[in-house]
């Protein structure tokens, strides 16, 4: 990926980010550990003063954005079709929970597995190309999945799968109250988040980063970069599927919105606003975008305009995203 990596290098070169990379606790630097603590504290107390359903939506999108960030932030692959895995995870979970009566944890796992399968096929095709071609192939494959969802009988077309039951966790704990559901969603999110963190800081993650920085060099060092990229793609797709599956259980509905290409655009926006290649960036980005959609809904069509403006401002004024800029200001890596 010579052209994009040079561009990225130039952008980073213009404003050099001082980095303190001390691997303190569980692979987190001290600053990251502090941020993680803050996040967990927020997760624990927020449902008591914020609307739980809104928080659950936020967490689902945060996990989705984290999964997407795993690809773009750490491997440098811009997938423009991640909505397909997110949406398909939702449809599958909805279907197995409603039609087959699966318990929620099995439904979520099934959604993630199907998304992983799709990711394996799409990734196998797409990773052979770089840059814009990679993005276009992922988009094309996602559109195929979208039209499959429009026509397939089990998705209900434009109506979606409605009235998906939340069911009972492990067949024991009823998830009908929002607060119980919230704890499950928070746990799913936290597991996904820590898994991604673990992946990034493993030796495997180091290879991914080296591919991002300079792929020919990694190849010359003896790494089969295609295999690494494919594995990252599958991991990212399956986590996106888990996020989608969780979302469809929360809202009891799975629709075409989640497989539409504009959802793929939205997750790019979340990751960019929050901060590309930062651990916490996608979470903050998702929070900003979802909060905007929720609290500005009364402005109707203006929400999209405001989102566009924010995107432009982000690109013009703080290119590293919210978390990236904060990290830069405090001279830490978040």
């Amino acid at each position, binding site marked *: 990926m010579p052209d994009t990596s040079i561009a990225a290098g130039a952008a980073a070169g213009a404003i050099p980010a001082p980095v303190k990379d001390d691997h303190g606790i569980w692979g987190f630097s001290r600053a990251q550990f502090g941020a993680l603590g803050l996040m967990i504290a927020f997760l624990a107390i927020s449902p008591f003063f914020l*609307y739980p*359903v*809104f928080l659950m*939506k936020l967490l689902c999108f945060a996990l989705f954005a984290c999964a997407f960030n795993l690809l773009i932030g750490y491997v440098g692959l811009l997938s423009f079709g991640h909505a397909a895995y997110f949406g398909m995870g939702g449809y599958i979970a909805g279907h197995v929970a409603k039609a087959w009566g699966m318990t929620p944890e099995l439904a979520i796992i099934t959604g993630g597995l199907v998304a992983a399968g799709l990711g394996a096929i799409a990734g196998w095709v797409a990773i052979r190309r770089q840059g814009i071609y990679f993005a276009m192939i992922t988009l094309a494959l996602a559109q195929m999945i979208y039209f499959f969802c*429009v026509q397939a009988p089990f998705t209900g*077309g*434009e*109506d*979606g799968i*409605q*009235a998906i039951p939340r069911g009972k966790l492990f067949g024991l704990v009823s998830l009908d109250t*929002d607060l119980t559901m919230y704890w499950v969603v928070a746990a799913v999110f936290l597991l996904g988040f820590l898994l991604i963190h673990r992946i990034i800081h493993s030796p495997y993650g180091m290879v991914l980063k080296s591919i991002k920085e300079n792929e020919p060099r990694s190849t010359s060092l003896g790494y089969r970069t295609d295999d690494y990229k494919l594995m990252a793609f599958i991991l990212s797709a399956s986590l996106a599927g888990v996020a989608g599956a969780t979302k469809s259980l929360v*809202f*009891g*509905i799975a*629709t075409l*919105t*989640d497989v539409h290409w504009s959802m793929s655009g939205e997750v790019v926006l979340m990751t960019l606003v929050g901060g590309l290649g930062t651990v916490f960036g996608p979470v903050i980005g998702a929070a*900003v975008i979802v*909060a*905007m959609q*929720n*609290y*500005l*809904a*009364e402005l*109707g*069509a203006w929400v999209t305009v405001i989102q566009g403006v*924010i995107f432009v*401002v982000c690109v*013009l*004024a*703080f290119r590293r995203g919210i978390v990236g*800029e904060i990290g830069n200001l405090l001279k830490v890596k978040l």
Partner: protein
Amino acid sequence: MAIQRRDLLAAGAAAATASLAGPRSARAQAANTIRIGVISDMSGPYRDTTGPGSVVLTQQAVQDFGARGFAVEVLQADHQNRPDVGANIARQWFDQGVDAVVDLPTSSVALAVNQIAREKNKVHLNSGAATSDLTGPQCSPNTVHWTYDTYMLAKSTGAAIVKQGGNSWYFITADYAFGHALERDTSNFVRAQGGRIVGSARYPFPATTDFSAFLLQAQSSRAKVLGFANASTDTVNCIKGAREFGLHRQMKLAALLMGVVDIKSLGLESGQGLLLTEAFYWDLNERTRALTQRVRAKNQDRPPAMVPAGCYGAVLHYLKAVADMGVAAARASGVDAVGRMKAMPCDDDAFGPGTIRADGRKIHPGYLFEVKAPGASTNPWDLYKLVATTPGDEAFRPLAEGQCPLVRS
């Protein structure tokens, strides 16, 4: 760079705080307030026939109801024709103390919200959605389906066109619950009268704006009638496209759901002679003209369309039921409030006297109109000539045929 990054950050943070703080204040609720939320299409293809007009007419109903010892607050939101968006808004509103949601055009959204209203035991006053499933297999004790439905449209418009000799049909159908229901119900009537269905083309909603491919498919079908099982802007675009291709010379165009706003944007020149069915027309009688007089200035100087008029009728009747049973009781249970609405006879300026059936179906007459020729129209909104009136007890699907689980035979 001219923009100071720090200023921007500060402004962004301020905006974020303001937006987080703002709508929360609406949460503070007086026990003596009834809160009604209008969920409608404020930005998509149904905006002109529902959306802002429904808000205006809901507010008018509150105003005409007057002060009777409790306050009424009206909220509004845009569901963007997406079932998930609509369901989220309804869920959030119900959790935050909204007592009733009104309008809900777009059948897929209506069916999704129908579930939520039932789960949370609130009130769903539907005016905008057409699917007859709302009072059929998916009927709910929390729902009143006020204005019209696909069965009524099919029976009135569909049957009238078959009588004129249109006995082979091709459909262009919006591919979601509403289009399917309208095509199904119309097909049943056509077949019952000895006609036949040649085929149908289904297009993705709301993403389609160019209908030429579907129109050409229809042209090659050689059916006598081209039925549009869609609504609003889509229907207008279809009819315009059909005229451009010269389809109107080979086949009869049947718009199964059309209203004054659509005819206005189509123009009498293109629209003249079309048969259509409505449950409300502003120039129908003294009472509808009086209502039009009251709201016209607030409604962008337009007379009310059918769906907003339905919001007026439904909200007015709901408020009467609330006054009758007391605010606390009405707020406590949506089933009880709807039960009271069904027990009381309805009467309002838009629809005149009527009743609500056990399955939630509001009963009033259906009117078959013919669009006037440009020469016959005396003022800019003088668009229709009344052709036939179907009395209320015949206009809608018989109670026993709806398969509504609430109805025990």
